[in-house]
């Protein structure tokens, strides 16, 4: 009979610090960071809209109702958001159905096209469409003029319709993702049991499938609406030259000298309330009537045979993505390789000069590239660490107040980029420490904007780790910190890498907040692209844009390799 020697009696090992105390310290620290990042600028935004520190007044809000160029901006915003939602719904639902339920050829290609349309920053597709559809100089206009001998081409991207279309191209992915997920989770058994009871194919769709996925479809449409409300880049590039203002671009223009903080903050608050209202509606819709998202696993899917409509369906889907994804990328690549857009296509018009210029010769774009990389790496790293901290506190520490952190971290979802920038300007400009007009203010802005993304990534990674894995480490003698380092973090690695790259990509494409916060010397690539496109240097702008797209693709591709999962699918 073997005997294992016994440990000395009554000698529990001593720890370095009490874990309850350290837990509270961590909670306090994270709360402080979130308060500074989120609540502090929001406070100044609200205060500013009511007249600032001197006297409280609602006169700023009255101006929104009375002054035509302020309420017209609101009207335009609502028009564009509604239009984009309708287009996204009409295009997205059939595409989702084809992907989920039919034998359409090349489903992977459709999925990829959806991701591409989603990952192209809005201002880049806007620039591509300027190249394509600007009155007179647009390539498509020239093509049509030449083909039909017209004096003027038919397309004008500088219009409400143009802005709406470009907006919808960037947001159709919301509908495709959510509708595919919803359709995937409806077990075909549900539909087949209706069929066996005698319902026709059409009745099954209208009576079973449709009611089951409706909440998800409506929710995704509202998401498109919110997304469209907040867009800045594409609306600025396509609207400002012809004085079509939306709320974000109007707020931006109110910051031109002399700045009108009163109107800007009041408009910002209107935008925030609109955003929060719609988001609230969307959440309620998903919570209340979600039959499909509760089970979370894909049901059995019977595939509809499209028969001779297979290839027409294929063409229709890719025809849409030609506009939403392929054309913008193609146009940017082509434009970046031409000496001048006006010279037409030919070997003698091809050149690498634009790339050489933006990468090695022009100090603004060089500086902007370095700045962007520094900012993207630091914001992604700090963001995901903060996100992991908040997720950990929320899910693991049994400390009172942990839930509050989670709520705080979702507030930025209701703050469009321009609005956040307004709040940050008001909040930091008055402080004696040099934050405003440095790179720090940009880092703060990015951290705040993308903290919801960071928390969500870390949260879903942490949820997949059973708490008993950490407890097993504790009871084996590992301290609280040791357990996190040895067990939790390694297991969260995949999700955190994915979150990191998502933030990185978002920072590279961030324009809405940056445009109000940058100062000379601290430009980012997005700012450089915007400024140079305003001045009409579309060839070099295209070269920069292609570099941005490349960086995006490379980072997402690497993340996918490292985590073995597509990070662009939510």
């Amino acid at each position, binding site marked *: *009979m*073997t*005997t*294992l*020697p*016994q*440990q000395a*009696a*009554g*000698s*529990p*090992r*001593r*720890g370095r610090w*009490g*874990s309850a105390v350290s837990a509270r310290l961590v909670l306090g620290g994270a709360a402080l960071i979130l308060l500074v990042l989120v609540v502090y600028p929001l406070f100044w935004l609200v205060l500013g809209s009511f007249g600032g520190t001197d006297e409280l007044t609602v006169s700023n809000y009255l101006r929104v109702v009375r002054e035509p160029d302020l309420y017209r901006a609101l009207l335009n915003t609502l028009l564009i958001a509604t239009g984009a939602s309708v287009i996204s719904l009409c295009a997205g639902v059939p595409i989702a159905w084809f992907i989920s339920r039919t034998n359409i050829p090349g489903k992977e290609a459709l999925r990829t096209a959806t991701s591409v349309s989603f990952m192209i920053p809005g201002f880049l597709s806007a620039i591509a469409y300027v190249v394509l559809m600007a009155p007179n100089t647009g390539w498509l206009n020239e093509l049509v003029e030449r083909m039909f001998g017209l004096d003027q081409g038919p397309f004008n991207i500088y219009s409400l319709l143009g802005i709406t279309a470009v907006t919808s191209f960037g947001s159709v992915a919301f509908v495709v993702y959510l509708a595919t997920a919803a359709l995937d989770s409806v077990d075909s058994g549900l539909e087949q049991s209706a069929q066996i009871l005698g319902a026709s194919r059409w009745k099954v769709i209208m009576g079973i499938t449709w009611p089951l996925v409706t909440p998800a479809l409506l929710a995704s449409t509202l998401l498109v609406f919110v997304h469209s409300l907040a867009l800045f880049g594409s609306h600025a590039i396509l609207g400002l030259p012809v004085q079509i203002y939306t709320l974000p671009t109007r707020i931006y223009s109110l910051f031109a000298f002399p700045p009108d903080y009163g109107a800007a903050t009041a408009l910002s608050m209107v935008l925030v309330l609109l955003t929060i209202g719609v988001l609230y509606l969307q959440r309620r819709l998903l919570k209340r009537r979600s039959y499909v998202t509760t089970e979370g696993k894909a049901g059995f899917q019977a595939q509809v045979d499209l028969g001779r409509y297979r290839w027409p369906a294929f063409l229709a889907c890719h025809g849409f993505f030609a506009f939403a994804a392929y054309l913008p990328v193609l146009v940017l690549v082509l434009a970046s390789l031409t000496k001048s857009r006006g010279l037409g296509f030919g070997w003698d018009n091809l050149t690498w000069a634009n790339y050489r210029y933006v990468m090695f010769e022009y100090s603004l774009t060089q500086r902007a590239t370095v700045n962007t990389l520094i900012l993207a790496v630091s914001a992604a790293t700090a963001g995901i660490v903060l996100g992991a901290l908040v997720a950990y506190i929320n899910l693991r520490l049994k400390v009172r107040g942990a839930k509050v952190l989670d709520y705080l971290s979702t507030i930025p979802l209701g703050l469009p980029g321009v609005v956040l920038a307004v709040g940050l300007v008001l909040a930091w400009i008055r402080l004696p420490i040099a934050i405003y007009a440095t790179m720090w203010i940009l880092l703060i802005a990015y951290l705040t904007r993308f903290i919801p993304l960071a928390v969500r990534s870390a949260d879903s990674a942490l949820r997949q780790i*059973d708490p*008993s*894995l950490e*407890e*097993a*480490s*504790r*009871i*084996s*003698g*590992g*301290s*609280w910190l*040791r357990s996190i380092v*040895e*067990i939790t973090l*390694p*297991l969260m690695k995949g999700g955190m890498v994915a979150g990191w790259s998502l933030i990185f990509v978002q920072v590279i494409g961030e324009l809405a907040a940056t445009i109000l916060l940058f100062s000379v010397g601290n430009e980012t690539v997005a700012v450089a692209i915007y400024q140079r496109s305003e001045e009409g240097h579309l060839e070099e702008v295209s070269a920069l844009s292609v570099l941005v797209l490349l960086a995006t693709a490379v980072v997402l591709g690497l993340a996918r390799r490292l985590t073995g999962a597509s990070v662009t699918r939510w």
Partner: protein
Amino acid sequence: MGTIEVTKLTKRYGDHNAVDGLDLSIEDGQFITLLGPSGCGKTTTLRMLAGFIRPDEGTITVDGCELSSPARVVPPEERGMGMVFQNYALWPHKTVYHNVAYGLRMQRPRLARKEIRARVGAMLEVVSLPGFEDRFPGQLSGGQQQRVALARSLVTEPSILLLDEPLSNLDAKLRDRMREEVQEIQRRTDITFVYVTHDQGEAMSMSDRIAVMSSGRLEQFAAPRQVYHRPANVAVADFMGLVNLLQGRVVSVDRPAAAVEVVLAFGTRLRLGLTDGTTVFVGDDVTVAIRPENVTVRRSADAGEALVADVTHTTMLGHLCYYVLDLAGTTLRVQTASDVELDRGDRVSVDIDERHASVFPAEVDAESAIEEERV
């Protein structure tokens, strides 16, 4: 050494007392089982022993050292205990070797790498998994994972091992084998085992003593034989296995012999021993608990017996037979060897073994006792 003293331990969640004034004293080197239906507070108790949960009242003392009180909880990593989790909680990113070696690496002063290697190797021998060092948990069967979990918790030579339903994820055959192995390891190591389960068979076959819990309270703490044959109350009797609960009335009390005479609803008189702590008076309504195996049935060819019943249902289990009888309106469950062949509608005579029946005051009937436990 691993003597545990639990005093007035209480844990509340909102208005609900998950553990309610629990007193328990566990001797060194014993195999103790906390037994009860789900929600009875056994797992909460175990997690308080481990230091994962802070008690609202009461203390936990190990070898004279107070480890848990509402004011101070020594964190799990400083308690020197081991724990086996229901889902094993093996770290999927670490090999079997690194899973088992983890606790040794955490020890201060640091152990030499050579010693760690030797002790992990020896431990894997004990759980019959030598040569599995480089496998990942995902590459192991359920039984093998179970052994790794055991090895990981034992390698640091804790004085106390906590086990949270460790066998509930295994299939029936494997469970029987692991049961024996766990018992064997406990005997060899002399570690105090505190084992949580809802399976009374598991509890009875492995434990030195069983603590039956319900609604956060300790119902009985005794050896398996006593818990089964001399349950402290109706709830324990009912939880420890199939039991007939018959209504009766006390007709006489014999205090010196601690015995009573009871007349049952269908007129039978039984002379029954009183359990410690049970007080009844003449005229009291009582519940009499009789296990199915303590009722004998014969074909009533030899009529004239006092008790005659009709067979209403038969269940053949192979080595045993269960019968449901109708005895003048009272339902009686009976267990016999399988060679006693009865059919539905047969008329039988019934004999109740008085020595193995228990009597309880009839304030709580079994139905509501079970209802209470499910909170």
